């Protein structure tokens, strides 16, 4: 048993942390986020150059064969900086699907450029009535001649606006909630019959709703075996969920630190508000929430890296606990800051909004407690 980081992991942590310190000054982040792309292409190129985009992938696919712990380190530091580059969308989710299901040729076409930083992808698996259920797929892909015809709606597609290709989850057989009969297709952006409604999420990050109307794709766009995509989807989304938890933990640490510092300088009634015991105890509760979340994260990382049967259950337990912590830490950080905490001008509200997004992203506390119970 050893819960410490390796030398390499400490170097990675340090490297990401230095990037954030150097390139994520708050106004610069804001400008990048408000650009039409929604992030900095320069940063993305740097990620590729530093090898961060290789981390989650196997060495035989051109990756670094990084562990869940490595992913956690990266995402936690990204969280601290509120990094907006679409690492979760392109690399973990969509890239994860290609890595899990793709043929060598498909990996060459779609994974290598992702690793090089040359291609953006987006995974389309959420539907208007699917809530958090991954097997609830009503978008249909019907065999037609040498290819498939896809029809249906996908919503809250992260990075959905600028992705060059979509990983589209569609039903090729079975009833709406069946786990079998779910297939995955690669669909290029701009294909005929596809309409894309771009918007920003509440945290400012771009996403899109997509409508597929008789979109024709060739046989070669099928990723993996027809009807057999569910397990891969589930496993990729679990890893993305874990990554999002790590991002949350980074955010919470930052909120706690900023709140503690603020109370030391902010004066009311002639004294720093850090001297009020009620606030002290509440900040201790925030600290506890942060540390218990981090412990869950380490637990899930160990389970994932061990490839254990119960890793899905571990991820659900983690998402549930982190979600509870996020609610507490986010709200308390805002409340203790007072008025300034709810302004757009200060970073606090942006951390709070991102935490809130992640609370619902990949499933709420209730949903994951339920999954934990049934797993």
């Amino acid at each position, binding site marked *: 048993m050893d819960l410490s980081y390796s030398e390499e992991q400490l170097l990675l942590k340090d490297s990401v942390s230095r990037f954030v310190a150097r390139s994520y000054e708050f106004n610069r982040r804001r400008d990048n986020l408000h650009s039409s792309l929604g992030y900095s292409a320069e940063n993305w190129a740097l990620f590729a150059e530093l090898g961060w985009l290789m981390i989650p992938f196997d060495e035989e696919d051109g990756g670094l064969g990084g562990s869940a712990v490595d992913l956690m380190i990266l995402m936690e530091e990204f969280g601290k900086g509120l990094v907006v580059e679409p690492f979760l969308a392109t690399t973990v989710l969509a890239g994860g699907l290609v890595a899990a299901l793709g043929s060598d040729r498909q990996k060459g076409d779609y994974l290598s450029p992702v690793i090089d930083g040359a291609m953006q992808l987006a995974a389309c698996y959420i539907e208007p009535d699917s809530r958090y259920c991954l097997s609830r797929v009503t978008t249909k892909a019907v065999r037609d001649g040498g290819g498939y015809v896809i029809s249906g709606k996908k919503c*809250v597609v992260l990075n959905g606006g600028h992705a060059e290709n979509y990983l589209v989850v569609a039903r090729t057989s079975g009833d709406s909630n069946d786990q079998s009969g779910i297939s995955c297709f690669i669909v290029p952006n701009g294909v005929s019959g596809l309409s894309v409604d771009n918007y920003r999420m509440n945290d400012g990050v771009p996403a899109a709703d997509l409508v597929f109307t008789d979109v024709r794709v060739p046989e070669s766009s099928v990723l993996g075996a027809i009807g057999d995509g569910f397990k891969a989807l589930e496993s990729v989304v679990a890893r993305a969920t874990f990554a999002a938890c790590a991002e949350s933990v980074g955010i919470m640490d930052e909120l706690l630190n900023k709140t503690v510092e603020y109370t030391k300088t902010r004066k009311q009634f002639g004294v720093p508000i850090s001297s009020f015991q009620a606030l002290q105890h509440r900040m201790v509760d925030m600290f506890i929430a942060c540390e218990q979340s981090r412990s869950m994260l380490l637990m899930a990382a160990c389970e994932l890296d061990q490839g254990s049967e119960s890793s899905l259950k571990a991820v659900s337990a983690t998402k549930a606990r982190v979600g509870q912590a996020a609610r507490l830490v986010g709200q308390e950080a805002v409340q203790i800051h007072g008025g300034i905490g709810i302004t757009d001008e200060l970073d606090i509200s942006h951390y709070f909004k991102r935490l809130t997004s992640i609370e619902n992203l990949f499933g709420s506390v209730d949903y994951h407690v339920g999954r934990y119970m049934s797993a």
Partner: protein
Amino acid sequence: MNAELSSDDLDFQDEVRRFLGSELPDDIRGRVESGGRLSKEQHVRWQKVVYERGWAGVNWPRQYGGTGWTPVQKHIFEKECARAYAPEFISFGLKMVGPVIYTFGTDEQKQRFLPSILSSDTWWCQGYSEPNAGSDLVALTTTAVRRGDHYVVNGAKTWTTYAHRADWMFCLVRTGAADVKSQEAITFLLIDMTSPGITVSPIITLDGAHEVNEVFLNDVKVPVDNRIGEENKGWSYAKFLLNHERTNIAKVAISRQRLSQLKSLLLVTPDGLGGFLSDDPAFSRKLAELEIELKALEFTELRTLSALSTGESPGPQSSILKVCGTEVAQRIDELFVEAAGMAGLPYRPDHYLGNAEVDQAGCVESYVNRTPWYFNNRKASIYGGSNEIQKNIIAKTVLGI
């Protein structure tokens, strides 16, 4: 002891319902129902409708154009307005400066200011908070120096809601020696927002809305006639105002309406398993517990109301209305966001801030404004005396600590 309405009150309730049924404009009702933000024009239009009916001065005595309603009637009116998705009245004129003027103002001030508050022709904002005095109101440093028949005001106010929409501001200023940090050197002034030297600078909140502002006052001349009461006695008028309005501070009626709206919404919110969220036992249980808490709060409010109706003092329970009211309201916000699920992620400013219809390809449309609302309403436990300050006050005044 009974919680039933008298037949007179039931008649009054019918009258209010009929009025709301026929007079509340659809666009305004729709905005409130959707959780989007109202334009100033919509606020004004609605208050004018109510004003025409003679009901704008809900809490005002008849002699100043008010309704002269009993506490129970006010309660019924507010309950029915919420039920019908009528917007709340903006409180700065009607609930705040109005009562100060008719209680402490000169006859000239009453004639000059009160009618246009009722008719919504004049909008007011509140100049209390300052950048370095948050919860500690008394620490204000904006100064007013007497020069003949004017004061010259210098300083800055912040968190000034609707300063950018307001015609007038009621304002606390320091008139005593600059270094005296006491309540004894504070004066209550009414300031024309078009006065030279006033700059309003927007503060955008986390939901993207422009609601609050900083107001900078640079050598602003304010006629002595615009002073309420005596110089250096402003704190007592401000305190009157803080203690004046005991009804409806818990916002029970609005919370009830929002909770019932949420329950309806759950019936059409897919649970991802082919059913609806209303079938989810865990969510239903949270909702039930919240509904019970709201019921408790309603009766805490009714206890206060009942005491006021018989001329008794409102009792210690009235001290918890603000804290509990905001906690319940914010809990409802949370459940909206939880219920929304993925539908709570997209931000649609055209719809939330503007008036645009939104056709979300995805998800249940009715959730579109709920997350920004949740964000915005975090203010409820911060503004107007934070919940921490409320608890300090309860500890001191009720528990005697």
